[in-house]
């Protein structure tokens, strides 16, 4: 796996830093960081699938939505406790992941991306039309059970989830499975030509990605206590996930976490200066410039900086 002492040191410092955060920042900032944690989980989910295998998902809210709606419906309409509804939501989302896998057996590139976008749109329409008594229709649902009270507890839960997902995926992607999944993104035919079943590997990537999306979606909905289809199945939400992963550094797991924090904090700190939608222009500009400067993202910029320091010392 090639683990070095500084890997442990960096992860340790990151976890300690997160643990101390509620002492250092205001409750308002903490609420922003809770969103960053969930965005990081979604971006990792995207990264495991799209960053690795090159099957670009434009419709990741489809998977997140399955997780979120499953637990919302189970808890709100059937009084199922969250201890059961969340694992069920993860499993149901994994089944959703298999549905997204089907087109990936035939098409890739922009065709696949468009199909995932269609899945998201389809889901948006379906939850409004089919059984609105269950889904809450266009309005969605509110009054869902929440798992924590207050910003501090909400933060700790989201941080714990995010670190667990990030660390486990980071370790997993350092194994030969990570190498094989990356290889799919580079040349699927050569993966087959190396005696490996590309279909099996893709299935693993889709299931992992879906499980993370379902987990994140389910916990997020129990943090918010509400679910609204318009906010969930929105192209801006899908793009925020992709941009977080890309500007952080796709296919690195750590990059999407950095990207999620960078994006969320950037938008938040622009808010007092530009309260309207203009800040999205700045956000888009910053993302574009960063991406043009280093297509491998902030992670690579940090790596190169560290290499320079190492060389000069």
């Amino acid at each position, binding site marked *: 796996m090639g683990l070095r002492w500084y890997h442990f040191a960096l992860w340790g410092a990151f976890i300690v830093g997160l643990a101390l955060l509620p002492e250092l920042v205001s409750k308002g900032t903490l609420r922003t960081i809770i969103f960053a944690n969930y965005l990081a989980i979604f971006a990792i989910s995207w990264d495991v699938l799209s960053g690795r295998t090159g099957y670009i998902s434009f419709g990741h809210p489809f998977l997140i939505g399955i997780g979120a709606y499953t637990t919302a419906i189970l808890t709100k309409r059937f009084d199922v406790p969250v201890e059961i509804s969340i694992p069920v939501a993860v499993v149901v989302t994994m089944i959703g992941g298999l549905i997204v896998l089907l087109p990936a057996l035939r098409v890739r590139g922009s065709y696949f991306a468009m199909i995932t976008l269609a899945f998201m749109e389809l889901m948006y329409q379906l939850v409004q039309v089919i059984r609105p008594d269950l889904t809450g229709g266009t309005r969605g649902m509110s009054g869902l059970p929440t798992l924590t009270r207050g910003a501090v507890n909400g933060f700790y839960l989201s941080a714990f989830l995010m670190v667990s997902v990030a660390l486990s995926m980071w370790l997993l992607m350092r194994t*030969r499975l990570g190498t094989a999944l990356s290889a799919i993104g580079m*040349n699927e035919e*050569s993966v087959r030509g*190396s005696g490996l*079943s*590309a279909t099996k590997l893709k299935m*693993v990537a889709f299931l992992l990605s879906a499980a993370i999306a379902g987990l994140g979606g389910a916990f997020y909905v129990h943090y918010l206590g509400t679910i609204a289809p318009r906010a969930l199945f929105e192209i801006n939400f899908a793009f925020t996930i992709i941009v977080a992963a890309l500007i952080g550094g796709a296919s690195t797991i750590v990059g999407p976490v950095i990207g999620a924090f960078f994006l969320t904090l950037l938008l938040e700190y622009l808010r007092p200066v530009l309260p309207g939608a203009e800040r999205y222009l700045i956000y888009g500009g910053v993302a574009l410039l960063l991406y043009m400067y280093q297509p491998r993202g902030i992670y690579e910029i940090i790596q190169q900086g560290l290499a320079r320091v190492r060389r000069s010392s």
Partner: protein
Amino acid sequence: MTEALTITNLVKRFGGLTATNDLSFTVADGESVGLIGPNGAGKTTVFSQIMGEHRQTSGSIKLYGEEITPLPTARRIRHGVSRTYQVPRPFAELSVAENIRVGLMHDNVWQMVLHGPDPDRELELALSVGFTEDDLKRTPAELSMGDLRKLEMARTMATGPKVMLLDEVFAGLTVGEIAQIGELIQQMRGDGMTFLIVSHDLKALEPLVERAIAINYGELIAEGSFARVIENEAVRASYLGDTV
């Protein structure tokens, strides 16, 4: 002698085009055979059918007596047949060592997760094709065409084949690199590897094969010793574009 590869009445049609036309031949275990023919003769299509990348329209392909036609590519490779490509297909962002690592993996997700790589075997394969230890960290973008072919050979060898199909293995190589790859093939022949080799470079091919099979328009036009096949009138006509 055991037959390593047995092709019987192989037919492949792409719409109205017959790319392989009732082709039959065998390659014995430990034998090295050249598959020659002009551009478009259907040599690569034969390879693609042996590997299962294209399904034949009809006919049979056996590996050590076992019909491999129903198997997908990955399983054919595990049965012991592997190929290289005319244009090398490396994993662009993986290092030389990681490229070889993919070839060494077993098709089992749990094993991939639970067992680490085998750096000794990776190094051994890299050295066997002529890389140095320093080359292990290089990426394909830093490699010459000759090195890319060597990398492809190493990754193909990593899958543990008994039969290797080499497609235009000398294309784009310098004289020195041709000699190096030729030497490697000779060495592997000495170790008992079975080869089916496609090459336009007949001069480089001649010393590496015991026998040649010539095809044109997907049909077998000559078979026998290399010298006899290239002297064959139909073969010469096919290369020079004459009709026989």
